[in-house]
């Protein structure tokens, strides 16, 4: 087609040039010529021989053809432009279909005739005899059309006939419409027939659909029947207890409930048709719940053999592994290398496990989970022991086990409760304050809380084993209860030696200090421990969920008891020691609560201490109670942690004591040095540096010297001494015969101005403790980089002190030994340590230049790992190619234009030459005629 059109273009061009006189046959001959295939287009491969498997570049491109195509395109565009460039007006071709290359001559003709006919069928021309020209002028839209049509009249010679034919058919029809009525009737009849058949079809369709519906309904019924059967058999299966062994009890209950629900429904369904729909919907719902159950059961673990009882070796092994794991964790906490979040996201699981169970006012205590997490396992030995205890405490376990089973289900609730933890924490601390207040003075401020808890108990309605405590609602009855307990005690104390049998095995946990102290009154130390252990056993958290709260209250009370015990004047030190174990064990059960207790107490102690400092009271040094508690916490909680919620504040408090309390008397010296040794305990494992303790020991040593002897270099420390109002308290004036270790408890009991503190014996023993503690610190801190800076001044001080007049021999040796030790270690560090060097920055790695091998390498593919770069390169390549192509095109255009111009020029030249030749010939002829004597043409003609 394209060729045809181009040929047309050529003809046009030529017709333009050579006027309109070109005849049709000539044009046709041109067409035929151009249709002859160009050999350069048909044969595009230059190869002479086919070589198997050889690929040649550019074979797929038909260069010759492409060239001719390009030339044709230029002819159509560039050449036209060129030709038009010299013309002032443009010839626009608006003939129908002339712009469209796809149309052949014939189609164009059809189009044109259609247009003509449309015009003729117009309203105006309806009764007009077609005159041709008139019609066309009537149509304004197609203004210039007729001329064009006229222009090609010659070529569209067939069109008119065609149009006439059409017209005639239309006329015919019009005629027939009036003439042939019966025929029409027939036609209509035929159409009616068709209608009927359609109706039938519709009916058929309806029937079919009805049939299908019925079938569906039947299927459904069958299905339901099947389901019913299945349900029946399932319920029988459930009731046959066969499943019971496979599934958990909780789930079993759910199953049973399900079955029970479905059975009545079935009955209803059978009886009433009206309710049938509902029953159906029920049935549709039931499978859902059933499905859920099935899913759950799939997720369940299969019945499996229970763990066999472990051999003692295995138990020991597990215990060891547990300890190892704990130690590892401790080390990690101590280093706390990741200092972005030491507590936050470290191990959320453990965190979660150790969080306290939230207790809110309306909490029924049923949302507690069992402490099954491995992290909290107490070790087998303990568990076994406990199990024995639990067996002792009769058979309440059975009731509880069910509770626990359901408690497991509510695990999820707990997670949501974590969010409420904040409030609960507040509540807890509030309640803490309640019992914290009544510490030394046993006032019954705990009343409200008691009542609250009692109500709480009632609300739960739990089966308390202790019958007496069940009905108590107010304080009088509570007291009665206490009395009844008291009533028991005299009996116990009557026998005294064989008291143990008389201690009840199950004791309700006391709720305030009064209860506890009255409970423990008149018992021997061992019995007290036994009582406490029994309280713990009978209220173990594992037994019942609500026991956790009880135990928390009891823990607080016990701590209070411990504190009060430390402050009692005839000190029962052994009992304090004995209490340590149960308290520690309880802390492992409720770590979070114990931490909160401790923090609360530390905070309060600090507040008291600050007030004492402000009032310049004598007793700003910690009391024995504080010391005991601090020590207890340092045992319960790990001191080596980098940061711990309890031990860090505790240590800070101890250091503050050392730093800020003025040393007024020998007692202060004793307490201070005892605090130092406690700090030594604190920091022993982690080797944390505590400057306060060192400085305190140093000031004490200074107190052992005379002021005059003190050398110049210590001048700055006199500021400290000013601060602490230190007098030469430890300066030994007379010979001391023997040195005993200081008895701290005894010291604590003495008053400040006791004569003992003035005695040289005290001074010597105080110095002894100082030097012992100092030695401990030296051994801890020998790894520190600035060890010499810290301890060398102390070493000189030691020497100074030891050279004093009345220093006993043993102490002197000790002092010298320690100072030697310091010097030795300082020397060591002097030789070992290097000046500080900043951490080296990571060296930039050298670029690797060894080749990288690609598997399955494909040539030409871009293996650049940097995709962006590869992409960019690709685009650049494309740009370059396009630029090249554009340049080539331009070049070719120029060449083409040049050729065209040349051609024109040639033509002009030829014409000129011809004219010239003619003129010359004429002249020659003239000359010839002149010469020959014949003049003009006439003669020539004549001659011819």
């Amino acid at each position: 087609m394209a060729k045809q059109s181009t040929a047309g273009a050529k003809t046009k061009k030529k017709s333009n040039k050579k006027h309109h006189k070109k005849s049709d046959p000539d044009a046709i001959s041109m067409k035929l010529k151009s249709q002859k295939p160009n050999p350069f287009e048909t044969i595009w491969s230059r190869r002479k021989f086919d070589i198997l498997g050889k690929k040649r570049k550019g074979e797929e491109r038909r260069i010759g053809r492409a060239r001719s195509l390009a030339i044709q395109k230029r002819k159509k565009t560039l050449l036209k432009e060129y030709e038009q460039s010299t013309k002032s007006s443009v010839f626009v071709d608006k003939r129908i279909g002339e712009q469209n290359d796809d149309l052949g001559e014939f189609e164009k003709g059809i189009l044109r005739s259609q247009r003509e006919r449309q015009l003729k069928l117009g309203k105006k021309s309806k009764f007009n005899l077609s005159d041709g020209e008139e019609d066309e002028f009537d149509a304004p839209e197609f203004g210039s059309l007729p001329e064009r049509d006229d222009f090609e009249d010659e070529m569209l010679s067939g069109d008119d006939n065609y149009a006439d034919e059409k017209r005639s058919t239309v006329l015919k029809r019009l005629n027939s419409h009036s003439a042939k009525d019966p025929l029409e009737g027939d036609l209509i009849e035929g159409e009616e027939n068709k209608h009927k058949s359609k109706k039938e079809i519709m009916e058929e369709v309806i029937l079919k659909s009805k049939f299908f519906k019925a079938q569906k309904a039947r299927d459904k019924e069958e299905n339901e029947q099947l389901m019913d059967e299945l349900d029946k058999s399932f319920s029988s299966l459930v009731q046959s207890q066969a499943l019971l062994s496979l599934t958990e009890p909780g789930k079993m209950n759910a199953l049973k409930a399900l079955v029970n629900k479905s059975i009545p429904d079935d009955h209803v369904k059978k009886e009433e048709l009206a309710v049938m729909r509902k029953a159906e919907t029920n049935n549709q719902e039931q499978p859902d719940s059933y499905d859920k159950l099935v899913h759950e059961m799939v997720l369940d673990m299969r019945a499996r053999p229970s763990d066999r009882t472990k051999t003692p070796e295995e138990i020991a092994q597990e215990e060891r592994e547990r300890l190892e794991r704990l130690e590892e964790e401790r080390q990690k906490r101590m280093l706390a290398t990741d200092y972005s979040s030491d507590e936050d996201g470290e191990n959320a699981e453990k965190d979660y496990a150790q969080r306290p169970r939230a207790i809110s006012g309306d909490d029924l205590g049923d949302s507690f989970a069992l402490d099954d997490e491995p992290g909290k396992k107490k070790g087998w030995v303990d568990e076994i022991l406990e199990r024995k205890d639990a067996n002792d405490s009769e058979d309440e376990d059975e009731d509880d086990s069910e509770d626990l089973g359901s408690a497991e289900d509510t695990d999820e609730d707990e997670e949501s409760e974590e969010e409420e933890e904040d409030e609960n924490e507040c509540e807890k601390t509030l309640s803490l304050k309640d019992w914290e207040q009544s510490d030394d003075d046993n006032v019954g401020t705990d009343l409200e809380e008691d009542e609250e808890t009692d109500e709480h108990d009632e609300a739960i309605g739990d089966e308390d084993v202790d019958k007496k405590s069940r009905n108590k609602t107010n304080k009088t009855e509570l007291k009665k209860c206490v009395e009844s307990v008291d009533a028991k005690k005299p009996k116990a104390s009557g026998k005294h030696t064989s008291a143990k049998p008389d201690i009840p095995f199950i004791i309700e946990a006391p709720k305030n200090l009064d209860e506890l102290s009255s409970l423990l009154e008149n018992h021997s130390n061992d019995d007290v421990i036994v009582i406490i252990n029994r309280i713990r056993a009978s209220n173990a958290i594992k037994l019942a969920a609500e026991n956790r709260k009880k135990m928390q209250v009891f823990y607080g009370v016990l701590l209070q008891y411990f504190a009060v015990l430390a402050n009692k004047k005839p000190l029962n030190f052994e009992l304090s020691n004995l209490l340590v174990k149960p308290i520690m064990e309880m802390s492992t059960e409720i770590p979070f609560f114990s931490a909160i207790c401790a923090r609360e107490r530390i905070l309060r102690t600090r507040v008291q201490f600050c007030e004492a400092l402000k009032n310049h009271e004598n007793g700003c040094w910690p009391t024995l109670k504080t010391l005991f508690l601090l020590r207890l916490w340092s045992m319960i909680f790990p001191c080596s942690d980098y940061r711990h919620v309890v031990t860090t504040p505790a240590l800070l408090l101890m250091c503050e004591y050392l730093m800020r309390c003025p040393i007024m008397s020998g007692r202060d010296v004793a307490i201070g040095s005892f605090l130092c040794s406690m700090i030594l305990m604190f920091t022993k494992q982690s080797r944390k540096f505590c400057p306060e303790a060192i400085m305190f020991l140093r000031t004490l040593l200074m107190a052992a010297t005379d002021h005059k002897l003190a050398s110049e270099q210590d001048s700055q420390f006199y500021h400290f001494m000013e601060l602490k109002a230190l007098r030469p308290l430890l300066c030994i004036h007379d010979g001391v015969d023997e040195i005993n270790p200081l008895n701290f408890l005894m010291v604590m009991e003495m008053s400040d101005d006791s004569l003992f503190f003035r005695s040289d014996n005290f001074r010597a023993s105080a110095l002894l403790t100082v030097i012992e503690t100092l030695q401990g610190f030296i051994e801890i801190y020998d790894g520190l980089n600035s060890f010499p800076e810290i301890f060398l001044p102390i070493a000189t001080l030691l020497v100074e002190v030891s050279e004093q007049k009345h220093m006993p021999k043993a102490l002197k040796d000790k002092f010298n030994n320690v100072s030697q030790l310091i010097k030795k270690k300082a020397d060591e560090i002097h030789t070992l340590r290097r000046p500080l060097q900043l951490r080296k920055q990571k060296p930039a790695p050298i670029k690797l230049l060894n080749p990288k091998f690609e598997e399955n390498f494909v040539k030409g593919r871009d293996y650049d790992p940097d995709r962006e770069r590869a992409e960019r390169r690709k685009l650049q390549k494309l740009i370059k190619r396009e630029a090249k192509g554009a340049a080539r095109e331009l070049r070719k255009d120029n060449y083409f234009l040049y050729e065209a111009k040349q051609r024109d020029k040639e033509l002009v030249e030829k014409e000129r030459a011809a004219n010239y030749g003619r003129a010359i010939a004429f002249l020659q002829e003239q000359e010839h005629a002149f010469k020959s004597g014949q003049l003009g043409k006439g003669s020539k003609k004549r001659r011819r």
Partner: protein
Amino acid sequence: MELSICKIHYIISHIPPLEGNDGKSEYEMWSGSGLPSNEEHDKKKLSKAQKAEDKVWKAEKQTNTVLSPASIAKKMKLKFTKAWISFLRLPIPVNVYKEVLATLHQAVIPHLSNPIILCDFLTKSYDIGGVVSVMALSSLFILMTQHGLEYPNFYEKLYALLSPSIFMAKHRAKFFQLLDSCLKSPLLPAYLAAAFAKKLSRLSICVPPSGELVIIALIHNLLRRHPSINCLVHKEDGDENEEDKNDSGSEKRPGFDHFNSEESNPIKSNAMRSSLWEIDTLRHHYCPPVSRFVLSLENDLTVRSKTTEMDIKDFSSGSYATIFGDEIRRRVKQVPLAFYKATPTSLFPESDFCGWTLKYEGSNEIKEQKTVEEDDASTKRQRIEC
């Protein structure tokens, strides 16, 4: 005498500050001019009668206000200055002295006509040492920065002020801020900066945690401002050996600290040859904020470009209370517990508390006797406690 001085101080310190508007200058008239008369009269006759007299003055002045406000202000400034100078010449008791120093830089210096005349008083009090000089420093600093006072041995004095007690002093916050701004100039010689840094780091082994934080911040700023003292924290092995050879080549002890902390002259303290081991030690400090801060310091120094100077204000007012409060305020998220192979039964095991006995003899019941021989105490300590 002391009482009267106290009273004078009370009056003089309660003079409202001079301001531009006329309504007030009227009022200040009497106070400005009334007081010098006090001085001129007799210093011992100061009582409420004087105040009554002042009121008379006031009434008088109110009647004849002819002077232009500018000249009034000038005059009053002069009088005010005179009053203060003559007051400061008196033998002032210590508590008043401290109070004066504390308020001087805010209440007095801005209103004096020629603040430089205070320099005698201030330098004298700066020379006293201790807390007093710390307090004098703030006024002195203003004189030096705003009024062009030249103080010859200022840095030596400042250096001498650094002592452990300063970290417990009341006005430490202000002092540390001033110290930081005094050391701000990059024109300070390296030896001075090094001496201050080393001195501070030496102090860090005997001050409370709040002080440690300030020290670390100060040293951080020093190291940032003075790249020349980088040798305190970073010394290559090579040049350090060279120095050893230079310095008599006596002991082969690279770890020896040449710094002399007792030396009051920063030039002679030899700080440049030392290294900040003490700060390194603080990494093991028991207080988590301190040790963390040291770590961050180290980080900051390695990537110097990314960090900025510390704001001393954030640390200078710290105390035990703030640190303790921060610790207590932390939310309790997890509570690790100590673990033992065997739960300990006694509160104070003797093996850990050597040098102490904890037997109780007060009550009649016989407690178990626990004593410990001093000799084997050390061997017991060797045992790893679990």
